[in-house]
């Protein structure tokens, strides 16, 4: 099966002031359709940098980052934006727009992708039902718990039928009981709906929930475990 995401000898160097920092030092990775991959590593291991590259938020210094066989280095700003519409982001701090209700937050993603208003409303309601938030869809983020906010974020990530979900510490900012519910939801999405998931975490327990886990340390992948 063709890889949705493929990193080939991926390198990324930042300038921290005047000091170059090698965040990625040659990462090779392949994610196929239906996969549920956890990227596990301590902070500073380069996993967030890798996530930014997989999400087409940044470009590599060297090597290739292929999304559906397209090298993101060859894309211009507009094409990158188009590409990002096919990627569902879930952030550690939810990153919802505070002035919008749950439903409006989910709809925002769709309106960016030019979906019509009527279509949007129906689709957003369906998605919020999927994540178990139908009753609270007219609440603003401040009126929702951390777990609920992350569910909204997951619904938003699913809004444009993405090729894969890209999650950055999805349970990092919520209590453990709620975290288990979120993990359950993510697993269900992967198993029942066949959504491909790439998740970055430093949480060993969370990583074991994925189908396979790659370990990162100091800018390279140091091992892979199939759970």
């Amino acid at each position, binding site marked *: 099966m063709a890889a949705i995401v493929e990193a080939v000898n991926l390198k990324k160097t930042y300038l921290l002031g005047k000091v170059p920092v090698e965040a990625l030092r040659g990462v090779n990775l392949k994610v196929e359709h239906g996969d549920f991959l956890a990227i596990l590593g301590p902070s500073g291991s380069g996993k967030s940098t890798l996530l*930014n590259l997989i*999400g087409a*938020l*940044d470009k590599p210094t060297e090597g290739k980052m292929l999304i559906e066989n397209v090298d993101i280095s060859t894309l211009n*700003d*507009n094409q990158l*934006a*188009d*590409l*990002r*519409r*096919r*990627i569902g*982001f879930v*952030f550690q701090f939810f*990153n919802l*727009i505070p*002035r*919008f209700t749950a439903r409006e937050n989910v709809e*925002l*993603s769709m*309106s*960016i*992708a*030019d979906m019509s208003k009527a279509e949007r409303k129906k689709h957003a309601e369906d998605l919020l039902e999927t994540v178990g938030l139908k009753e609270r869809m007219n609440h603003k983020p401040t009126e929702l718990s951390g777990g609920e906010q992350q569910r909204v974020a997951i619904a*938003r990530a699913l809004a*444009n039928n993405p090729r894969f979900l890209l999650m950055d510490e999805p349970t990092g900012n919520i209590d453990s009981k709620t975290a288990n519910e979120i993990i359950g939801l993510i697993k269900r999405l992967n198993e029942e709906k066949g959504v491909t998931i790439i998740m970055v975490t430093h949480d060993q327990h969370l990583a074991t929930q994925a189908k396979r886990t790659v370990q990162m340390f100091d800018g390279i992948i140091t091992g892979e475990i199939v759970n």
Partner: protein
Amino acid sequence: MKTGDVFSYSFSAIKLRKLRAGLTTLGVVIGIAAIVALLSITQGLQDTISAQLQKGFATDTLIVSTGRGFGIGAMGGVGGINSGFKLFVNDTQTINKIDNVTMSTAIIERFGSIKLGETVWNTTIMGVDFAKYASIYSSTFVAESGVIPQSPDNETIVIGKRVSDPWKNNTLLFNISDTVEIIWLNATARPQKNENYTGHIEGVLKEIGGFGIVGPSDFYIYIPISQAQKFFGTDECDMIIVKLNSDNKAVINSVSKAIKEAFSNQASVTSATAVLDILSSVISTVQLFLAGIAAISLLVAGIGIMNIMIVSLIERTREIGILKALGMKSRTVLLIFLSEAAIIGLLGAAIGIGSGWVLANMVAILFSGRGAFTQLQGDQAAAAGGMTITPVLTPTVLLGALVFGIGVSIIFALYPAWRASKLKPVDALRYE
């Protein structure tokens, strides 16, 4: 993102900071209101002056004068000032020979007074040929009561409406059939002495309005030219009104030239059109100047918009990162910021036009008692000033103010919007 969605997104951002957006809008409101108020007042002033001048002026007439001591001559024509040039009553014969001239009539003008019993009223005495004068100013030199005799006897007097009824309250100081004394101070006689004669009022003119600079006036009295020659003891006239067979500009110019040549380029020839043109251009300059001052306040408002947008950009860096992560294009981010400015501009311009219009009318009421809303103390003030201003909001000013308000807002938002659109998603998302 669809245009409608861009606007509703921008609107939601504006709504979030109501006070801040309100104050920013206020800046635009003040700028636009100042422009609209000033332009509509000056436009009203221009219209009033034009209308009033046209009442007294006929567009197919020229005024020939010596260019001395007579305002219009100095304004419109080039004459032999201080040259000792004199115009005589019978110079009309010379003028009548010029092509395109239908007729001409001389006027002798003196300050004097009219007296009935103990009532003495200072006024301007105009010696005119009643028949010709009435024919040239057929719409204004018309009797309201009595008649304007075609071949008057020497004692005939016709008076303006404001001489008869100075306070507009039917307290008639002088009326038809009154036998009155006409008095003139002969300053050239040694010693100076009052000349006088007794005449009878045959007609009272209907109200003209306007300034009456050249044409018939509500404030003057009229006596036959032959009587004026005798009474003032002169054949010199102050001006000659020339009626043309057309108000075409070329005709006006060629006749003006011919008249000047006939009097060795010493006579001053003024056309109503020329005076109007000069006044219009003076007012336009004033208008431009005032609008320029008002525009400065709008520029200040623009800087306010820029300032606020930059603050907003910094506050919303993370939001922009989220939008970009969700796949929003840089162009759309730019449009969102610009449409926020456009909404503020539109709102500010709309409110500004409204309040500018109200302001203009309030000023007009204070100034002349004639606004679009009401006539408060109206007529007294109008009579005192002799002029009323009704503010005029032309479609050009209306549209211009709208476009200008929105335009300035957008132009000043360009830089912050561009900066927002250029934010790198990865950096913006990391922003705390």
